[in-house]
């Protein structure tokens, strides 16, 4: 996390997401990261902070987002990951961070956001499912010195690779990705119960005087305020095919004016801010 500091999946995400946003991702910085994160996926399907530790929502988001950013998400066992995350939503309607632990509003983003990301990767996951019970095909990573954080590759039947871009490549410049056009989901819906999650956030985590909290009985704080809101946003937009299209009314619990700004699920930045940053840093390559 810092010079001589502790090493875990958070640091992978922090470094890679910042490098990605600043458009300075390259082979050097991503070398070995995917291997490490793979070692952090546990027998439960989720991702741990360090190899051997327990699968945990926060680290799962960090690991998953990082793998996406470095174009190695296909190396994860996505079916077991999806299964684990999906089972973190419980009777209270919010998400828990780990198996058999308590619900907490902040996991609305760590877990809900992970499933939101996965929605947009489903073609890879489907390939993995379809290849059961045979061994999962190892996909080659194509790196030409510059990692295009906006794309990932999937194998084609003829053995060649197909690049799928997360983002509409308006510039078609090498490594640049402007605009946003998420991969379409096959059935258009979230993998979790979006309305239930919104219920938990608004009814249990919300503090009427302002801000959000872990759960009733806890005090509000900025961390929970941030991640409950991010989780709420992700939930509201989980029915949208693309980042720019407004959600249908039934996607938003309560008044439609409850609708929040959309966030970029890899960075948890409000999209407008992301666009600005992206534009600024793409000029500087």
């Amino acid at each position, binding site marked *: 996390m810092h010079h001589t500091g502790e090493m875990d999946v958070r640091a992978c995400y922090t470094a890679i997401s910042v490098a990605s946003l600043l458009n300075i991702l390259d082979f050097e910085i991503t070398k070995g990261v995917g291997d490490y994160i793979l070692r952090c996926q546990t027998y439960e399907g989720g991702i741990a902070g360090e190899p051997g530790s327990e699968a945990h929502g926060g680290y799962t988001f960090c690991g998953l987002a990082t793998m996406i950013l470095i174009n190695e998400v296909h190396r994860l066992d996505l079916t077991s990951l999806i299964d684990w995350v999906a*089972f973190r939503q419980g009777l209270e309607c919010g998400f828990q961070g780990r198996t058999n632990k308590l619900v907490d509003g902040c996991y609305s983003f760590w877990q809900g956001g992970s499933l939101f990301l996965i929605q947009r990767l489903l073609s890879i996951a489907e390939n993995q499912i379809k290849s059961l019970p045979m061994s999962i095909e190892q996909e080659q990573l194509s790196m030409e010195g510059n990692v295009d954080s906006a794309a990932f590759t999937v194998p084609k039947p003829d053995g060649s690779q197909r690049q799928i871009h997360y983002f509409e490549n308006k510039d078609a410049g090498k490594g640049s990705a402007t605009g946003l056009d998420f991969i379409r989901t*096959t059935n258009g819906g979230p993998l979790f119960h979006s309305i239930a999650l919104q219920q938990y956030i608004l009814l249990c985590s919300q503090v009427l005087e302002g801000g959000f909290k872990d759960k009733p009985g806890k005090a509000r704080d900025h961390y929970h305020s941030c991640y409950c809101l991010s989780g709420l946003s992700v939930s509201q937009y989980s029915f949208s095919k693309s980042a720019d299209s407004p959600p249908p009314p039934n996607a938003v619990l309560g008044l439609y004016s409850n609708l929040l700004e959309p966030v970029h699920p890899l960075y948890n930045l409000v999209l407008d801010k992301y666009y600005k940053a992206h534009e600024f840093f793409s000029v500087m390559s």
Partner: protein
Amino acid sequence: MTRFSAAPLPGRVTLGPDANWPSQFRTVPRPGQTGQWPIPRALPNAGLMRCVPRRPGQASQASFALPRALSRCVSRRRGQAAGGPGHFRVAGVRISASAGRVGTAVMSSDEDEWVPFSRRPEWSDVKPVPQDDGPHPVVPIAYRDDFRETMDYFRAVYLSGERSHRALNLTAEAVSMNPGNYTVWYFRRLVLEAVDADLNDEMEYVNCVASKNSKNYQIWHHKRWLAEKLGPEVAQKELEFTKRIFAIDAKNYHAWSHRQWILEALGGWQNELDYCTELLEDDIFNNSAWNQRYFVITRSPLLGGLQSMRESEVSYAVEAILSNPENESPWRYLRGLYKGDPNLLICNNQISGVCLQVLKTKHNIIFPLSLLLELLCHGFQPSTEFVSAVEALRTSVPESSSTSSLANTICSVLETVDPIRSNYWSWRRSHLPAEVC
């Protein structure tokens, strides 16, 4: 009149061993002094002076053993410091400087006063360095005065590269105000190395801080750093420490990571599986303990690895399932035992057997249905018993088709009985492997 006025120190003290310091400010115990840290050296009228409550035979207990004491000994209260005759602290031990009142150093919260660094003679040579937030700070923080000053002095020693005992004490003060400041911890490590401090004492100190801040990354990292330097002799002690943490919070993530690291780096595996069993006897739902089981059976050099442990672990998990079928942990553990070996998974009769057994009870059917679905996706050939058991659950499900595969039916049932995951089951249903559609 100050009793303990130090001779004015020439210039800035940079590197220097203990010996450079006036005797009363030495804080690192001499060889032979056990346990307590830090302890001021003998002072005039030392007989009247009490450091901290010391109990014979508890050599391992730090002088700051009580977490309460820790916060008291580096008090943030400003109290009468301004007007009083002056007290100062040596690593938190309060020494009264007023005539006639010899240091009853202690930990009485009513009398705690924080002395500004500007009033501490031993710091008179140091020019504090203010925080530089630039000309237009984005989120300027309204620091408390004592915090600001402490950090101003920290910055001074950090930037000058000082490695001394007073710097060490300063880091203790800074860390008590913000245990999350990793730069202070980092600098503390540099100083510890430079003054060749007793790292066992340091471990006692950090354990004290840890018991009050058991979810702080920096503290656990510091422990890891110390343990690595101290080597295998501390393995048992470290494992014991994590046990004490688990007694308070059996799922403390940092403690589990630390425990795993100790095992792999310094050893101590012999009783680990038994410890997991113990924890699971206390709470069969403790997923951290299940995770630790997996860790042990896959990594312990004393065991034969996953393959050889599988059979006994399957039995263990099945037993746990039968006693609490609603417990997700053993179900996931079972699946985990066959990670990467799906062919063996579907051949294990105990596994398909426990699915059937729980399904037949018609209670807590989500996990067995989910596992059965997984078995089917890996090529399991269900007997008619399985089909009937699932059919028996389908009476409440409106949609029914005799041509649906069992896998498909299971998904339908799950969409109804596990409504929070209806979207997930619906997605699973539309993406079943061709062979089981």
